[in-house]
């Protein structure tokens, strides 16, 4: 399959292919290639393999009985729900940021781009802690929320909020370089010809950025579904209520239910594989 892909699109650097050059050099080439592949199998391939091997260790029937445990099913549902809520909001935010910083010049523009990317450099644990000190009973807004009898910490909305924080830069980061490179001539032409702002966006901008937008959304989704540290701080991890799939994996593992933990993990590992396949396809669509 990979060979077929190579035939369709010749490698960028075939001029340095190991097929050329002196025999001694060729041996070095193949040695480097072999060690790169060996290390990749060792550190990336084996962990992936172990997940599916252990998940199906007891056979397909055991796998499905583990996956369909009520607590695991609920965790899957909550994880999907979080993605359904968080990904569209962060797509809209990403579009807003990208439009703002690529279509206008204004003071503080570079600083804004740096600020928007802050969540990438904050540890997931710290992200969770910051929300605790805003909405928790010890937090800044705690007394206010208490007086209205509103509880945010250790509830599902807290999981949504902290996931919004952690994944807010994903879409913007994909769109900014692309929209910067494309320039705004197309949009300016549309506006000059009398299109409204929304028409310009939907008929001119969106078709140009759709694959990168989808690509950002896919990466955002993978992170939302897999987030562990930040969610574990704010969720309270109540079984069957505020337990997402990654938290459920830890619970099962601590309960010595290894097969259950791996069965739950295999669903997330599958999502990771689908993410990579989509990433590969979307990247090629955007550049072609």
């Amino acid at each position: 399959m990979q060979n077929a892909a190579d035939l369709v699109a010749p490698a960028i650097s075939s001029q340095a292919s190991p097929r050329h050059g002196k025999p001694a050099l060729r041996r070095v080439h193949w040695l480097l290639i072999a060690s790169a592949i060996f290390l990749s199998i060792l550190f990336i391939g084996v962990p992936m393999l172990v997940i599916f091997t252990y998940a199906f260790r007891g056979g397909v029937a055991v796998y499905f009985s583990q996956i369909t445990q009520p607590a695991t099913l609920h965790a899957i549902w909550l994880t999907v729900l979080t993605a359904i809520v968080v990904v569209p909001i962060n797509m809209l935010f990403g579009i807003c940021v990208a439009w703002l910083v690529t279509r206008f010049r204004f003071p503080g523009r570079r600083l804004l781009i740096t600020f928007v990317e802050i969540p990438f450099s904050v540890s997931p644990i710290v992200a969770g802690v910051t929300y605790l000190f805003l909405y928790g009973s010890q937090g800044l807004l705690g007394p206010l929320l208490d007086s209205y009898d509103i509880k945010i910490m250790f509830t599902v909305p807290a999981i949504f909020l902290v996931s919004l924080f952690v994944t807010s830069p994903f879409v913007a980061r994909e769109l900014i370089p692309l929209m910067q490179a494309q320039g705004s001539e197309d949009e300016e032409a549309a506006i000059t010809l009398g299109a409204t702002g929304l028409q310009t966006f939907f008929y001119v901008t969106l078709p140009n950025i759709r694959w990168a937008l989808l690509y950002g959304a896919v990466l955002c989704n993978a992170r939302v579904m897999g987030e562990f540290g930040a969610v574990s701080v704010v969720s309270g991890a109540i079984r069957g209520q505020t337990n997402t799939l990654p938290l459920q994996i830890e619970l099962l593992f601590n309960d010595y239910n290894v097969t259950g933990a791996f069965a739950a993990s295999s669903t997330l590992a599958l999502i990771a594989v689908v993410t990579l396949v989509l990433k590969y396809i979307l990247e090629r669509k955007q550049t072609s």
Partner: protein
Amino acid sequence: MPLFSKFSRRGILPGFGLTLGVTLLYFVIIVALPLLAMLYKSVNLGWGDFWTIISSERALATYRITVGAAALATMFNALFGVLLTWVLVRYDFPGRRFLDAVVDLPFALPTAVAGLALVTVFSANGWFGQYLEPLGIKVAYAPLGIALAMMFTSIPFVIRTVQPVLEDVATDVEEAARSLGASNWQIFSRIIWPAIFPAFIAGCSLSFARSLGEFGAIVFISGNLPFETEVMSLLVFIRLDEYDYPAAAALATVMLVTAFVMLFITNSIQAWQLRYAERS
């Protein structure tokens, strides 16, 4: 939107006020306000209490363990990253595109899943652990496991920062050097290495920063023993569990400040790299 009309007059495209408003509002509510709330909590502690918490024996041990393991993980990823990037960019072999795609797996795979997989492979009766432990190499529930978890979760950083730069190194310069009699090693050390070095350092600092804050993969494999296999993020989590909120705030603030320092360093390196690219 009359407030912003001064700026929006610069172009004919609409939406400046709207996108600026939405961006700032969202950023303040989702990102800035929580960060400030935590810093406020820390500041309220007073310098004396804050210092006592962050300089306690147990906290100091977590800094040592975290930084040591992150340094080890980053060193490995630096070597592995350069090797993999070189192979992916310079050679053509069956499965190259597949390998290029698979490299991103550690970013796509949830950290908890990675931690579970790694601890299973390296525990005493795991696929690798059963051969390593008799040799006296303990990975699971040991500092080495922490480094391994950090390494796995940050594998793609060096590769993805160096790859585009290495692709841009002009082969005609190399051919000129070769025709003038330069050896392969001379070409690499004098032409290629200086060109990719800033990107390489930027990738390493990203990898190191990510390792300092890693949590999900580490809790599974570290064993979580105070003074031995306890990292910074874990101590914050433990303090929360004990309802010791001031300590959690102070320690999380240390992590946040460290992250900002790393962000500043990485941004400076990338600015330097940009200047370098423009000059050459």
